[in-house]
């Protein structure tokens, strides 16, 4: 092992556990790259970053941290947007990116087993020649890890028809916060009797355990796919079109909306497609499935759009055109960099019918705070992403952006929606949890956490509001769970 430039005994011990080359970072210059994730408003240096190569190393690191009272957390690609991977307490970061093998593909039973650092899109790329794909497609799929997807229960444009990550997880191997390794439903048989532990772990934002192996469902490629792009002069027309499409009984694979500022950004960024600048909204609609019936659905969609005063509507002529439209949409968040130095993305869910009202109120918020807000919307399932544009260099702007973002979430909660669709709560929205949960409801959830994570060394300070009175009330259940 190369000589360490430190006297810290914990770092020396950890370096003995992770054996690969360059498997531990502990100097400030290296650690700085880990002081935040896709949510940049809070930053903190970790104590160290370790790169285990297998489950045993993960378990040994966790055991060591647990025994020595060192806070720790898991990190995938660090694309999370709510700060889940930020080492608020100077954690030891356990990076899973070197555990990136595709362990097996079983097309007969339609499942694949991957390590947590395996990148989402690589799964589809590795099985597409056999006619299969992995359905959950977060816009960050080029880079984010499936482990991170499980932790955040990631969704994506095509989750309207096929469901989010949790609907595609068949089994997990997890290292519990005491270092014990458990397997949940390792045979990959869905709906095992007993409590739905897969359900609890998926979306737990890395607070209950570290996922080290994942069995996922894979799907057969649809026979056919058609994509429609529609431009509307009025947001209300666009959102009525969305409702009409759904009520016509069509279940599109994807149904996305962007508003005027979002369009300005994607057109100024790396993947422009030439959208008109003066429209208020565009819809990107995809239908897929068996070939029979696709044309009819497309005709119905075109009809609806026309009825709702669409300015222009077109069907993608080939795979390249479809690809361009999707690249333009999927890089929407990053594109904000082209029109603003910083952005804060919010992640509310609203009843679809409330969209015009909600957008109106977001507009008011924008005026009130003097910050521009772009909107990207998984319109089909009501998952709204207001992107608050600000400049962290301007004194007070960051604070204003946070408040504006929070106000947007309040609007979502007020119209009967929720404060997160897919990005998770993390640090960012933990206070907003109070918009939708009472103290008792929050406590019920932290009690669940204590079953898994009694010492709260794993990813502490995330997901739930800083406790008020909850803290004194200890749960009865102190024994960690075993398989």
């Amino acid at each position, binding site marked *: 092992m190369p000589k360490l430039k430190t006297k810290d005994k914990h770092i020396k011990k950890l370096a003995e556990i992770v054996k690969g080359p*360059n498997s531990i*970072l502990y*100097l*400030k*210059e*290296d650690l*700085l*790259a*880990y*002081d*935040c*994730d*896709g949510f*940049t*408003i*809070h*930053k903190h240096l970790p104590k160290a*970053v370790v*790169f285990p190569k297998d489950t045993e190393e993960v378990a040994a690191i966790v055991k060591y941290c647990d025994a020595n009272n060192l806070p720790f957390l898991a990190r995938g*690609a*660090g*694309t999370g947007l709510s700060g889940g991977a930020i080492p608020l307490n100077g954690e030891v970061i356990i*990076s899973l*990116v*070197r555990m*990136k093998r595709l362990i097996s593909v079983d097309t007969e039973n339609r499942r694949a087993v991957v390590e947590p*650092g395996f*990148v989402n899109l690589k799964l589809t790329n590795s099985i597409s020649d056999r006619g299969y794909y992995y359905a959950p497609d977060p816009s*960050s799929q*080029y*880079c*984010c890890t499936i482990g991170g997807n499980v932790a955040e229960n990631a969704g994506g444009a095509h989750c309207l028809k096929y469901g989010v990550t949790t609907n595609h997880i068949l089994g997990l191997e997890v290292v519990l916060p005491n270092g014990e390794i458990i397997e949940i439903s390792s045979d990959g048989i869905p709906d095992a009797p007993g409590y739905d532990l897969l359900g609890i772990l998926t979306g737990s934002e890395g607070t209950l355990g570290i996922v080290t192996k994942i069995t996922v469902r894979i799907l057969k490629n649809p026979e056919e796919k058609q994509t429609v792009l529609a431009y509307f002069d009025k947001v209300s027309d666009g959102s009525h079109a969305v409702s009409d499409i759904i009520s016509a009984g069509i279940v599109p694979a994807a149904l996305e909306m962007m508003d005027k500022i979002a369009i300005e950004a994607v057109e100024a*960024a*790396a*993947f422009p497609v030439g959208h008109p600048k003066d429209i208020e909204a565009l819809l990107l609609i995809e239908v897929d499935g068996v070939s029979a019936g696709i044309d009819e659905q497309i005709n119905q969609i075109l009809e609806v759009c026309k009825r709702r005063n669409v300015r222009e509507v077109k069907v993608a002529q080939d795979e390249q055109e479809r690809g361009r439209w999707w690249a333009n949409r999927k*890089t*929407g*968040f*990053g*594109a*904000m*960099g*082209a029109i603003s*130095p*910083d*952005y804060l993305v919010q992640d509310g869910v609203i009843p679809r019918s409330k969209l015009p009202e909600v957008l109106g109120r977001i507009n008011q918020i924008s005026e009130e705070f003097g910050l521009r807000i772009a909107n990207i919307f998984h319109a089909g399932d009501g998952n709204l992403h207001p992107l608050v544009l600000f400049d*962290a*260099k301007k*004194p007070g702007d*960051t*604070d204003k952006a*946070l408040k504006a973002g929070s106000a947007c979430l309040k609007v979502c909660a007020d119209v009967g929606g929720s404060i997160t669709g897919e990005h998770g709560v993390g640090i960012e929205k933990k*206070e907003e949890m109070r918009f939708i949960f009472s103290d008792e409801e929050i406590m019920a959830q932290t009690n669940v956490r204590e079953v898994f994570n009694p010492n709260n060394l794993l990813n502490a300070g995330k997901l739930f509001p*800083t406790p008020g009175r909850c803290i004194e009330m200890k749960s009865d259940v102190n024994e960690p769970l075993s398989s």
Partner: protein
Amino acid sequence: MSVRQSDVMKEAPCTNQSLSNYLWDDAPDENKWADCVHCGMCLESCPTYEQTGQEQHSPRGRVHLIKSVAEGKLEVNEQFMDPVNQCLDCRACTTACPADVDVGGLIEEARGQIRQAMPLKGWKGRLSKFFLEDLFPHHNRLHTFGGVLKFYQKSGMQKLVRHTGLINVMPNHLVEMESIMPEVKVPVRQKFKDEKVIKAKKEEKGTVAFLTGCIMDVMFSDINESTINVLTHNGNNVTIPEQQTCCGALHVHAGDRKTGRKLAKQNIEAFKDADKVIVNAAGCGCMIKDYPELFREDPEWKEKAEEFSAKVEDVSKYLHDTGYEKPRSEINTRLTYHDACHLAHGQGIREEPRNILLDIPGVEMVHMPNADRCCGSAGIYNITNPEMAGAVLESKMQNVPDDVEMISMGNPGCMLQMAIGARKYGRNQKVVHTIQLLDWAYQKDAQSEQGRGDD
């Protein structure tokens, strides 16, 4: 005050310029990192992140570190130098980044600071100095160097070195390089020394000026000849302005922006009268298109540089845009195409060279997965960072299809590296420049015409 507000105050980014730890002019440009929203969409595009899985070796991490120095959180020291210098300058991140962040530009500016804060030392320093200061910028010395190489190859020295075990004491990567060194021929700058204009062979379309490249013209003069042949074959007069020099890419990659500027000025002057400047080395093309970046703090030269770079075109793109004759003779071969970083990511040229190849009868193109992944050549990176370069090369070679006879590309640096790769991994592919293939097809056309004429 809520918890979150106090956190925000504590973490408020520093904007005070005086905190910056960049002490020299031409420091990394704040506007470049301001575009970065830290989304991470660039991670998987980066070969050094692929190899290490460590974010300080990713585009996002590098931008973050470069910004941190300006904010006074880091100093320009060894530890900062490592991630900045491990960057291959491949610009794959520029293609991947939705916000169009110029990561490559930031890296080069940061290297400029590093170079001044920590002048090169040790054998790497001496080697860099030899190549960058004493050799590349000097046309005549390069010729002499070429002569020495030629002497080395022809005199039996090469054999001697290879057979005596002398080769065993050379550092590994130099041995690898030695083994694939192309046979040195007469540079075109020498060959066409007395011709002011090399005349178009067909009806004249116009006149273009040709940047021969420094090392290119010594090591790969046959590619330069092919380029001239192809250009004149398609109705272009070709000039080779005499005052031209090395493009400066290697200097700028190494942080020596001062020499970079000097060479840039000389080239801008040398090509003052040209309407079009044609390049056949992607690395040089990308660099000279980027000249304005070197003169951010010098408006007068910036303007000249902008005027100059607007005239620069890669030969494949130029042929594509102005039209070229499709050869009639067959070159029966199965080949694959490698996207040189500085062509694909640096200049957005992907389809043009492929189309040229497909226009040659008998050429069968096999798709290479991740064709636009860096091969690890990156100027003299394979000399200064042999380990990373080797790892990147290995993963590149894994993508080269087994059943092809040739690998075609548009950059000599890549050609050397890929030839090393082919040899090292026991592959038998021939490494060729796209333009060479076109030239060979034209030559075959000419031969068969001559044959007919003789009947």
